[in-house]
């Protein structure tokens, strides 16, 4: 079932595409199963047996994706980690939606998140995971200073990357303007705001803007937001990690919406 006659010399042709590899049984299985993110080739450890390997191989075959059986050493070399559990896949660039496609995928009262130059892949992945769990319908990212959708993001998202609509646009301020025209409330999360999160209402169409880890939301985008909220600090010091802050905002939105179902 698994073709072991893998060609040599492929790496030279493809160059160093390490960041386009994803690995780990669950991440690879879910990605292949979902079929959204195109797989260029699939490597399965030659010691791996069981239903996950069989399902991956069957689906890859259906989609005419080359499958190779590899030794543990080879897999570790490709993934640059030993944590692959015998599953690795080389990926095409992630197929982000355009803004128009994204809006077509939204329900009647959307709740979305806009990420402004999020740079840490752990944060990015965790935000995708939280969004998916806490009733956010999709995420819009920009194309500058933004973490790519790579293996680390896929892993931190624990598969949510395969289900949540994600759009990538050149110009986030322009997107914010369009959303405002569509009747969205565009809400900035900012430590400098004087309005506590719990005074905001999220029952209408809402976009939550999360800013860069160090510098926050860009001034141009911030000036377009029609509301800015802060998470009240009850301790003496500090700040919140971007993914934690996003989770707290999403939870509040999800809580409010579950109390009063949207019309």
């Amino acid at each position: 079932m698994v073709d072991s006659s893998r060609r040599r010399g492929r790496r030279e042709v493809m160059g160093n595409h390490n960041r386009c590899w994803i690995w780990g049984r669950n991440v690879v299985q879910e990605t292949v199963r979902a079929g959204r993110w195109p797989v260029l080739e699939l490597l399965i450890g030659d010691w791996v047996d069981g239903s996950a390997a069989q399902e991956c191989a069957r689906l890859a075959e259906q989609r005419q994706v080359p499958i190779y059986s590899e030794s543990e050493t080879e897999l570790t070399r490709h993934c640059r980690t030993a944590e692959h559990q015998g599953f690795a896949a080389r990926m095409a660039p992630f197929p982000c939606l355009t803004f128009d496609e994204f809006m077509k995928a939204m329900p009647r009262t959307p709740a979305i998140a806009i990420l402004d130059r999020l740079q840490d892949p752990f944060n990015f992945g965790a935000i995708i995971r939280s969004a998916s769990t806490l009733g956010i319908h999709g995420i819009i990212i920009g194309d500058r200073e933004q973490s790519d959708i790579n293996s680390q993001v896929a892993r931190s998202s624990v598969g949510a990357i395969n289900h949540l609509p994600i759009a990538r646009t050149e110009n986030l301020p322009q997107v914010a303007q369009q959303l405002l025209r569509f009747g969205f409330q565009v809400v900035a999360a900012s430590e400098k705001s004087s309005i506590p999160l719990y005074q905001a209402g999220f029952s209408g169409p809402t976009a939550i803007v999360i800013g860069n880890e160090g510098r926050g939301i860009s001034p141009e985008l911030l000036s377009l937001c029609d509301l800015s909220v802060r998470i009240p600090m009850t301790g003496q010091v500090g700040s919140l990690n971007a993914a934690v802050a996003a989770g707290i905002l999403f939870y509040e939105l999800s809580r409010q919406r579950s109390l009063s179902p949207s019309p």
Partner: protein
Amino acid sequence: MSLVLRNPHSVLAALQMRPEDVFEVRLAPGTPSPKWADVAELARQHSIPIRTNLAPVDKRHANEGKSERTGAAVALVRERADRLVDELFAVPADPPGLWLALEQLQDPHNVGAIFRTAAFFGVRGIILTRERSAPLTATVYDVSSGGLEFVPFAIVPSLSRTITLARDAGLTVIGTSEHASRELNDLPSDRSHLLIFGNEEFGLRRVTTENVDELVRLAPRGPIESLNVSVAAGVCMSKLARG
């Protein structure tokens, strides 16, 4: 043992809370970033040696604590001493407060992020299990962005005694589990709680789930089962911490 810290925020917090434990600050050649300039200024006030014009220490690990803000500058800082779990609960629980216990958390990013959030929300103490848990390395300090300096912590072999002590101190002991039927939102916020989070993959140990007063979940709605543990902990703290 001394730690090599790379996040200026974690160094600033250490300088503020326990300057006697900061041995040395090493700056990269050239003008330091504004935060490292603050570090240098505070270090100077405490007569802590500042060295410049050095190659980065231990380049092999330069990318390890890949969170926000890393650079070539570092500081050598003594590990912060842990406390006895009894001491953590000796603080009167009036006004009501929040304590956390982390059972076999393995990802240093999660542990660091939880300390950072705990400092922000004024959590009274964190109890960590010793076995199969991420040790408090420099990565944890740096990810916590100073949070580790402000929240007292204890390290215990298992949580059974911690749970008993917490109950004796008047706390309600809550386990978090995605299988729980009760929701976080239903918990009264005018009480003191010990909130327990389990391993990233396996959750709480069975003996712990049997020992808590109540299990709660965070009302999952999407196709993904649960939240990242540091995000889940953040949501819980935002709901239950009163500083």
